[in-house]
């Protein structure tokens, strides 16, 4: 068992599709929340395999897409001030209100791609005379690892290290979507790696509050098709519940060590989601105890961003109200080379996925 190819098996996929065909008697609208699931669905062409009655819409689970433009602008200003700005590769091409980290790098700013938050900490250790700032983005999957870098910086007294955060939480976003008056989502594929950290409890609450079927789903073709199968099964039977399709990784209580690290370093507050707006209690912010490692305080910055992005309807896309192909700018003024918004740049953004892969 290697846990990859087995879940891409053409035979098993075909079997699942047959079962789904037999099961589906009515039209259903299901939202897949996670950008990683969006990517897999489009890359493997899974939408083509689904019964026509199933409408799959893409959700806001792309942390790159929802990081506010003012955070990118702040990161740019830090990089241009002479500090070393460390970031995951995903963020480099995303436009802030005027420019991107990749452009700044080309103009000579010290922007380093890191693969782990601890890499950023190591860069700080190796460059004691320079300020090193880590642009920490992500959902609950990435936040615990990001937390470790600042936890360790405090423990070791690495004073030249600080973190610029944009962490967001999935359940409040789903709550927000469900409350929207034009919400059409009848079931969710919940993100399997987020749930690996958080466990199932918040999704059970969502399900109970709104009678919503939820399938905690993995990322391989078989996982996604099974997740859809479970959602349809619950919808057809009228029995909303939370089913853990990704049980090989997700357990009921999640990862307690990771949750404990999150709790130590971060607190929950309202957060701005790019394109969508402020969602209550949906973001993780550094606690006062870590204020000295907070780049927002160490590098004061006034955002000049108007927050109105010319023509970009990323909010509609991220909330599943429109498909990228329904955007008037799509493939005209907005392309991966000249993106108007983040979903066209991020590898798992719905717009980029449609642009690159989709049969038209």
């Amino acid at each position, binding site marked *: 068992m290697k846990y*990859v190819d087995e879940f*891409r098996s*053409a035979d098993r*996929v*075909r079997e699942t599709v047959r079962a789904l065909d037999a099961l589906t008697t009515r039209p259903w609208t299901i939202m897949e929340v996670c*950008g*990683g699931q969006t990517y897999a669905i*489009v*890359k*493997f*062409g*899974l939408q*083509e*395999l689904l019964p026509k009655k199933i409408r799959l819409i893409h959700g806001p689970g*792309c*942390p*790159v897409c929802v990081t506010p433009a003012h955070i990118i602008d702040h990161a740019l200003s830090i990089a241009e001030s002479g500090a070393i700005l460390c970031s*995951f*590769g*995903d963020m*480099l*091409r995303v436009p802030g209100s005027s420019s991107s980290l*990749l452009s700044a790098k080309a103009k000579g700013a010290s922007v380093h*791609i890191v*693969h*782990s938050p601890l*890499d950023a900490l190591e860069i700080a250790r190796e460059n004691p005379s320079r300020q090193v700032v880590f642009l920490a983005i*992500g959902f609950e999957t*990435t936040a615990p690892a990001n937390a470790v870098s600042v936890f360790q910086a405090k423990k070791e007294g690495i004073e030249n290290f600080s973190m610029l955060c944009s962490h967001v939480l999935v359940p409040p976003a789903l709550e927000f979507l469900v409350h929207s008056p034009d919400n059409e989502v009848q079931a969710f594929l919940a993100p399997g790696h987020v749930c690996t950290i958080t466990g199932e409890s918040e999704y059970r609450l969502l399900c109970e509050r709104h009678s919503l079927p939820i399938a905690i789903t993995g990322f391989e*073709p078989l996982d996604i098709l099974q997740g859809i199968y479970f959602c349809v099964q619950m919808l057809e039977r009228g029995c909303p519940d939370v089913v853990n399709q990704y049980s090989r990784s997700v357990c009921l209580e999640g990862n307690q060590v990771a949750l404990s690290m999150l709790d130590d370093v971060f607190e929950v507050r309202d957060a701005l989601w790019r394109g969508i707006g402020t969602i209550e209690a949906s973001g993780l912010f550094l606690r006062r105890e870590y204020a000295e490692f907070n780049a927002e305080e160490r590098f004061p910055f006034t955002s000049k961003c108007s927050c109105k992005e010319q023509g970009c309807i990323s909010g509609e896309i991220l909330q599943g109200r429109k498909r990228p192909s329904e955007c008037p700018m799509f493939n005209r003024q907005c392309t*991966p*080379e000249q993106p108007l918004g983040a979903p066209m740049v*991020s*590898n*798992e953004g719905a717009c980029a996925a449609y*642009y*690159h*892969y*989709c*049969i038209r």
Partner: protein
Amino acid sequence: MTCPVEVEEKTVITLSHGSGGRQTSQLIEQVFLPAFGNQVIQTLHDGALLDMNCGQLAFTTDSYVVQPLFFPGGDIGKLAVTGTVNDLAMCGARPQYLSCGFIIEEGFLLRDLKRIVESMREAAIKSSVEIVTGDTKVVERQSQEPNIFINTSGIGRFLCKEPINARSIREGDAIVLSGDVGRHAMAIMAERSGLSFPEGLESDCAPLFAMVEALLEAEIELHCLRDATRGGVATALVELSEQSGMNFSLFEEKISVSAPVKSACEVLGLDPLHAANEGCFLAFIPQDRAECAQAVLRQFSTGKEACVIGQVSGRSSSPRALMHNSLGTQRYLYKLSGDQLPRIC
């Protein structure tokens, strides 16, 4: 007063090495000539006089700016020779003569220059080409670590009856890929991404002309050849589809990717089809010769993984390259713009 160019650990290239004076001559005599020594270059004239008893010549140029300069399986020098030699092979020409121009930032270590030039010498011998003329400039340092840029131009004798380019691609042609993909890109990225290959992974950088020649000797009509360098196989296919005005139909299972390369791409969030190669090419040939071509290529160590990966399906006003996967679904291939960046999302 002399200023000997000695091979010491810390000897660096300075602006005076590029000024055309005594130090430039010493650099040429003590670094370049011993490596590229041939009758033509020894004349040390402004240009090379070459005897080319032939009809058409292929002529190409390329500049090499790769980072890092040294990587598993090669370096910028090996790339600079092999890359240009391969471009000539992709024209259906026997590579014969190369020029090389160096732009070196002051402070560049002499021992690194010697190492690169030695790689070029070895690559030239392997490709049966001679480096017959060259130039060196030294510039002020722009980057933290002094850098080197190499341009090579190449001439070769065209061997085919018909031109080899995208416009010669025909409906029904088989598309053959000469090897497995992604090794060059992963060999370069691995170290700086914190990945290790216990079995070792080297760039696939290798000359391709011998394989092209073998196809010609087997009397296989070559309509188009393209090496899948920057942007990978996918970018090459999309470009050719657009340039030829033809739709391509491709089968993902036929494209060979080694297990470690596949895994490295998964870990970094990269697509092997967009990963750069330096020793693998696409050939568009008549469908009825496809099996033969595959067999011919597989005789070479660099062609062990050669496979027919698809077909030219027909003319179109908006031509696309369509990839079929093992699940029975399809997606369009697209051209990479810029470099692939590793991702965590």
